[in-house]
């Protein structure tokens, strides 16, 4: 694996391989000493042009559990906020001897630009680029689904036949995009549910079904319901009238929760708006995988860092 920029570029074999390595990494979390010596002497840079406590912390833990040296470079208060370009930042990090760069950026394609620029030769790991992709989030979601389905026998399995319904702001969601490609590659069927204003104008090339009505989608008995975070600023841009109406139409409230099967997974990438897109009952129910997702995120990020830094870097991902 050369870089991890998007899940669209991952094939079935690569995707399953990452999930399997993550299974090995998950075992480390249960040891008394939660640390592997694998990446000792390697330097990982967390390059965060956009605030994200959760993803940044998850990558930090992952790198530390693999014994890598880790530096987090946040845009706030750094030279980046003083107008330094992506190019200068990247060249600076290259000169400092970074072995891998984890980048979070508000511009779609920023990770692609960094990987293809020649400014830095290290592998690039996309930790979320604008409204494009967030590949490790989709990988941890797939990992979570696989574990719930197959438990200890997960290794080597995919998500064949699983029905996944993703609800909310698809238009602006990099989580939704990465999940659409990855879950499809792993054999799942993805159903997107949102008001037409929060769907891309043309989804004809997406391997998904689309519905506007959440109640109809729930009647179809999905195996997974993934609720996306709704941003407050969307209300001011006429995407929907107000939070009340959104919650009524597309929120996972108690009534809708009751209609789900007991083993239907309720997922959310966090942070949640309780009472808006997801009710407290749904978030805290046994169906909810929210905390498993957080824990699995560390395992997935360990797996990806391991594959990028220690393995064969010829095959591009």
């Amino acid at each position, binding site marked *: 694996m050369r870089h991890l920029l998007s899940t*669209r570029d991952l094939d079935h074999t690569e995707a399953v391989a990452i999930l399997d390595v993550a299974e090995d990494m998950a075992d480390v979390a249960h040891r008394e000493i939660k640390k592997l010596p694998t990446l000792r002497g390697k330097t990982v840079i967390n390059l965060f042009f956009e605030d994200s406590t959760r993803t940044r912390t998850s990558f930090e833990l992952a790198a530390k559990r693999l014994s890598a040296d880790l530096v987090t470079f946040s845009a706030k208060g750094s030279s980046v906020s003083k107008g330094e*370009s*992506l*190019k200068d930042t990247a060249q600076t990090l290259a000169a400092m001897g970074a072995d891998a760069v984890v980048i979070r*950026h*508000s*511009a*779609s*394609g*920023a990770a*692609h*630009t960094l990987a*293809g*620029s020649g400014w830095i030769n290290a592998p690039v790991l996309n930790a979320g*680029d*604008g*409204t*494009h*992709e967030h590949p490790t989030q989709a990988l941890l979601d797939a990992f979570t689904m696989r574990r719930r389905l197959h438990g200890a026998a997960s290794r080597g399995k995919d998500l064949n036949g699983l029905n996944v319904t993703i609800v909310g702001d698809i*238009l602006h969601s*990099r989580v939704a*995009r990465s999940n659409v490609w990855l879950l499809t590659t792993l054999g799942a069927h993805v159903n997107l549910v949102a008001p037409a204003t929060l769907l*891309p*104008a*043309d*989804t*004809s*090339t*997406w391997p998904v079904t689309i519905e506007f009505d959440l109640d109809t989608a729930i009647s179809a008995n999905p195996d997974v319901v993934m609720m996306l975070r709704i941003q407050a600023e969307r209300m001011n841009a006429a995407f929907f009238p107000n939070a009340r109406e959104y919650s009524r139409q597309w929120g996972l409230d108690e009534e809708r929760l009751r209609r789900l099967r007991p083993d239907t997974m309720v997922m959310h990438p966090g942070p949640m708006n309780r009472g808006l897109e997801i009710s407290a009952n749904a978030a805290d129910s046994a169906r909810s995988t929210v905390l498993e997702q957080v824990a699995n995120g560390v395992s997935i990020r360990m797996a990806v860092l391991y594959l990028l830094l220690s393995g064969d870097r010829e095959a591009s991902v």
Partner: protein
Amino acid sequence: MTQHIPTILIRGARLPDGTSTDVLVADGHVAETGTGISNAKAQIIDADGLTLLPGLVDLHTHLREPGFEQSETVLTGSRAAAMGGFTAVFAMANTSPVADTAGVVEQVASLGVRHGYATVRPIGAVTMGLEGERLSEIGAMAQSRAAVGVFSDDGKCVHDALLMRRALEYVKTFDGVIAQHAQEPRLTEGAQMNEGALSGELGLGGWPAVAEESIIARDVLLAQHVGARLHICHVSTAGSVEVIRWAKARGIAVTAEVTPHHLLLTEDLVRGYDSRYKVNPPLRRNEDVLALRAGLADGTIDIVATDHAPHPLEAKECSWAEAAFGMVGLESALSVVQTAVVDSGQLEWSDVARVLSSAPAAIGRLDGYAEPFGIGNTANFTLYDPTASRVFGPEHLHGKGVNSPYLNRTLPGQVQATIHNGYATVLDGELVAADTVAEYARIVQNARLSRG
């Protein structure tokens, strides 16, 4: 100091209509045409195998001076124009200060005259500061030494319907034309590329075709209502071609341009987030490219104009969202037109002469381009080798910008010589030195002044 420019004899050139001729150019004018011309004093240009086109006219160039000299200047931009076979360029108004007063347009025009690589005709802003609120000094610019006839807020749309109506009416007073940058601003907030399946996948803000088509539809109706001339800049969608075709059928005085890049490139190039492909209006679908070619072939679209938009390196060396919109296009225009519509059989060379010379000159009220090969007319020519082939590279760019989408692409054709006002600005495929060109330009200017 000599008071004459060298006499030039072009031997054996093929004209756009397919016939062959020699052309003798003396004292800036076409002195003789026919076969077997000899002249002992003349500098001979062997044009065997070359096509002699009228000097190309670009109705849409960004020369960036004054104010953005790190991107381009009148000198560097007109050198790029000469290398592309252009003898006249219309310079867009989005400079700093904006070309919204007589002083600015006269300055730009006089720089063009002094450097001499091409005739530089400034375009005046429609509104003060391109702010879309108050009309600029249109009358003063029209009556200035720059004799402005084309007015545009290009880069921004004159989106206020009442202001657009007034502008159309007011320029009619001065036989001018409004060149509209058709982009409904609210529908294109945060727009980064063509809106469609690919923009959704790439997570880039969509620039929907309807944002262009709705403005064109409104403006052709306004032009009809007030009986004014309207020109549409850089038409980019199949729907726009349909609207313009409908307007022309109703007899509305609308003209339209398409850029070379919209005739060749599609949105698929955006997939790698290479900011050289970021342009406004954006690259569209293949269906749009085909409709634009058909529209150019059937006359719905009147002209090709480059929208040459140079930027410094740092404006493109960044993430897609942060990168500037625009591509350079002067040096590649003729080659791209050849590969997009001539080699495919949709346009003859006589059509190329129309869409890249006589028609843009007519829209801009630029004299001397109606009968380029007529005896006694000012000599503005381009000698072009359509059989050449080259891998387009930075060495083919002569302005300050290298933001060309064609780098590393094989393009047909090569401009061998450009004759502006009767003197060479390009010879043997190379630029003539700046001081030589400036001296020729001075002689021509003196001769014009002495004739009154």
